């Protein structure tokens, strides 16, 4: 079936329209960061303006930007690491030694992801308070790794299942213990999948706002809370907020751009199962 440029025109236009529509707010936010506060809220919205760096300097002057940025990095990496350490054995066991209950367990894990976090806000807050985990990075890593664990387990499970079982049997015949089988054969072969899972987990933890806002205040908050702090009862400082937001998402945007191929590959594998 020949595809003429005509038949490709409509889907292409639609795709570009959607992409631009989704990207536009971010682009606008990027621009707004360089406007003065007055220009930022002008109606009609100003497309042409004289750029200024006053917002960025104001944002960066706040002592806690670097602090919060470090927190974001630590929490994202830490949660991913904890999640992986728990998920690899779990996914291994479910992929290669499934029982009658395995299916139910997997579906249950998925269902916990559908739980709205607000539902457990009260108990988690109280628990964290009682254990002295409020406003600590450890506390945040704990809740984030729990939040992201179902996704990590699911993705690792589907990647592990793609490794042909005969190759693992061959390693057993060659004399590998279970640990050696894991280290020398399974992990190397599923490394692309593990990498994609880790990337996704980092991105999800970086963007995590709900728990960061509720469980932390000054010491352990992440960039998401930092961005939110630019709202106050008198109204929003749109320009500063935009500058802060841009700074908050810049690292992860770059990170996502660099790793986009792995991400797409990893996500599409997980979904097709």
């Amino acid at each position, binding site marked *: 079936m020949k595809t003429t440029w005509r038949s490709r025109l409509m889907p292409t236009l639609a795709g570009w329209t959607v992409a631009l529509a989704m990207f536009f707010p971010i682009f606008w936010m990027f621009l707004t960061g360089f406007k003065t506060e007055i220009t930022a809220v002008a109606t009609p919205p100003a497309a042409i303006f004289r750029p200024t760096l006053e917002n960025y300097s104001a944002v960066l002057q706040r002592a806690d930007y670097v602090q919060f940025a470090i927190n974001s990095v630590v929490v994202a990496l830490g949660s991913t690491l904890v999640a992986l350490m728990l998920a690899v054995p779990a996914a291994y066991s479910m992929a290669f030694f499934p029982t009658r209950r395995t299916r139910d367990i997997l579906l249950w894990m998925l269902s916990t992801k559908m739980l709205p976090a607000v539902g457990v806000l009260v108990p988690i807050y109280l628990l964290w308070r009682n254990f002295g985990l409020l406003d600590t990075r450890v506390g945040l890593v704990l809740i984030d790794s729990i939040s992201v664990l179902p996704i990590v387990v699911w993705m690792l499970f589907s990647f592990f299942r793609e490794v042909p079982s005969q190759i693992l049997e061959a390693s*057993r*015949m*060659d004399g590998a213990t279970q640990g050696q089988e894991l280290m020398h*054969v399974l992990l190397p*072969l599923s490394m692309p999948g593990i990498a994609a899972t880790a990337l996704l987990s980092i991105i999800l933890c970086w963007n995590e706002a709900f728990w960061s806002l509720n469980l932390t205040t000054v010491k352990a908050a992440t960039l998401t809370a930092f961005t939110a702090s630019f709202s106050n009862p008198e109204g929003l400082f749109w320009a500063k907020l935009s500058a802060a937001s841009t700074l908050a998402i810049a690292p992860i945007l770059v990170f996502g751009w660099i790793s986009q191929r792995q991400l797409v590959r990893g996500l599409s594998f997980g979904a097709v199962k």
Partner: protein
Amino acid sequence: MATVELKNVRKRFGPQEVIHGVDLAIADREFVAIVGPSGCGKSTLLRMIAGLEEITEGEVLIDGLPVRDVPPARRGLAMVFQSYALYPHMTVAENMSFSLRLAGVPKQERDQKVRAVAAILEMEPLLDRRPRALSGGQLQRVAIGRAMVRQPKAFLLDEPLSNLDAALQAQMRLELVRLHRDLETTMIYVTHDQVEAMTMADRIVVMNEGKVEQAGSPMELYQKPATLFAAGFIGAPKMNFLDARVLDASDAQLALTVVNGVTVEIPGRREAIAPGDRVKLGVRPEHVSIEESGELHGEIKVLEHLGPRTYLHAQLDDGTRLVVQAAGDTGIREGDRPAFRIRADACHVFDAFGRRLT
């Protein structure tokens, strides 16, 4: 070198029993082929010997020692998988030396052993390549090489040639026989292809539906099949089977009526048989000939010209099919209605349960 013994081995998957009490004794340095149709349990049996499947009941002994609780790596066996199962992320040399690496063998010795095996299999130029850069035949060699490096007591081969094209299969069959002779090691070979079994094995074990039908040398199986199934499985084209009824049994011969009341007299005494019993008469295509004085009549439906031989597929007057072997340059044609003679002394008789009548 090793002996392998199976004693009343059974396998169950949940409530379903798939291997029903198999007894087998494999001598040192023997090449034993386990053949059977798909699903007969031959691969499962091999995997139980290897340790990749649990033995539900019964004993597997290697060199006289029970191995039920011994993990696969410590049984001293090496397996060649149907899909080769090579490690895609390692080079050929690393694939072959992996087992040595796990055992802590120093690098120099590892390299030495790998090179020795590579020389025997004539695959030195492949050592630094990855599996994805190899052809089917080369992958096969690497799989065999990986097993050889371990210097096992016995080799287990699970349909290793089934993924190769016909020409390569024929070539590899000869190579495996040569290898077996040179290595002087027990080989247990699973296949669904009876040609492989016939040409390569010292002994053949025919399996069907989880049971051993017969075990014996290729010629034994060909000339004296113990069951109807074994008779039909070994030999290509298949043995012809005719429904028959006993007319009279004496010390010298057995008289049967087949097709349309034709009588066949088979020399030799047969036990446990009475007039009126229903039996099956088996006769191989090469023991049927076209002769004017033949007892059976039918029409030639299809001819298969193989060059040195021609197989005539005929339909007898009562609908029974008969395959006859004829010379390559036979003048018979489709639609002809010749008479067929069966060589009475080359016939096999099977009772109603499929057992050979002797």
